[in-house]
């Protein structure tokens, strides 16, 4: 175990050869189950990691910000329903925004919301990359993730739905987030992201194109919903088969876009 108090000791952390720990909700499971598979743990206690700061039209969310902090922060109200969909209260006091970015299938619901909102990740060394690019290479990602930068989003712009088999809480069969810009009745542009429908959260670009300029009603969103599977690659797991996921994805996308129960 290496504890790093500030980013200034970054070099020390990098040399320590270990997994960087966020809230522990994923990594500690591995430590409990098979400690020999964890090369070492690096815990960063820099207070900057737990900070949310607004600058211009962007909000910088520290990688160590918890789901509970997201729910309570007035600038992050659009993301509160996404954070609330994750675990119970105890887990939300621990699970972090940064850790969620690395959560394997079928976890990572918060990342789905960030992907729809067009977030960027910022590394401690200043590198900045689109979340979508980060997700493509996250398996081999090296470095310390410092913040997630997101454009200010109003609650009515971001729609989110988590589909699970148990209520009130369960692991995702899929989760869907959509950022819609335009008037209340039609979308001038959209970003749609799915979770648990591929190895990482994925954007449904064909559906985004099909949604441009259409009325937000059952007929208007129909083609977008039909197109959503083009960019997704669902797999079988203990929660649902790939076939089932593919069958219900267009239906849940429609419900998400139209706010249907």
């Amino acid at each position: 175990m290496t504890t790093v108090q500030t980013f200034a000791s970054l070099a020390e952390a990098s040399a320590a050869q270990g997994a960087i720990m966020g809230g522990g909700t994923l990594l500690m499971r591995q430590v409990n189950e098979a400690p020999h598979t964890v090369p070492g743990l690096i815990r960063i206690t820099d207070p900057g990691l737990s900070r949310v700061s607004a600058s211009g039209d962007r909000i910088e969310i520290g990688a160590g910000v918890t789901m509970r902090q997201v729910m309570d922060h007035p600038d992050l109200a659009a993301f509160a329903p996404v954070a609330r969909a994750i675990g119970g209260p105890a887990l939300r006091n621990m699970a972090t925004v940064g850790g969620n970015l690395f959560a394997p299938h079928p976890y990572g619901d918060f990342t789905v919301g960030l992907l729809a909102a067009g977030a960027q990740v910022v590394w401690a060394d200043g590198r900045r990359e689109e979340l979508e690019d980060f997700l493509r290479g996250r398996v081999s990602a090296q470095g310390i993730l410092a913040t997630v930068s997101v454009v200010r989003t109003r609650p009515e712009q971001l729609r989110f739905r988590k589909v699970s088999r148990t209520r009130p809480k369960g692991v995702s069969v899929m989760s869907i987030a959509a950022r819609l810009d335009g008037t209340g009745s039609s979308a001038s542009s959209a970003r749609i992201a799915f979770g648990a429908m591929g190895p990482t959260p994925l954007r449904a670009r064909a559906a985004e194109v099909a949604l441009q300029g259409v009325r937000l009603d059952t007929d208007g969103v129909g083609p977008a919903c039909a197109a959503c599977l083009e960019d997704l690659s669902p797999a079988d797991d203990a929660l649902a088969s790939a076939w089932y996921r593919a069958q219900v994805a267009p239906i849940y996308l429609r419900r998400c876009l139209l706010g249907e129960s």
Partner: protein
Amino acid sequence: MPKKPMSFTLNDAETGVFVEEGQNLLEALRRGAGDLSPKFGCGQGTCGACTVLIDGAPHLSCLTLAEAAASRRVETTGGLAAGPELHPLQTAFMEGFAAQCGFCTGGMLMVAKALLAENPRPTREEVIEAISGNLCRCTGYGPIVDAILTAAARMQGRAA
């Protein structure tokens, strides 16, 4: 493996334990501090039986690195009663048959305590949300939710 000393406040008492690298808080509490009230259920953060309060907020102790609790205030079910006086939540659980095997009860009590500290008059839906990370395989949850609402009412001086 070398052990490190760690001190924290456990149920208002200054406590010191030795922790191993990677040891979780649940083990430190049970084996180090001898507090057997938080339970090991799954070790995966799924069941909530190990829930404790850290600085007043519920945490899953099986997924909390022990040394991350250093110098912090940890509360467990073992500290709920004041001598022979049970906490109103414990009384309501007992009277309402909200425990059968009792394995989940400690975790349920701790999330309920945190809920009532933050929201003394919760709705039924808010109680259900509060215990949504805690599994019970005996009671079907109804008596647990009722007991928490009863305790909330009594703590407010209201009729249940």
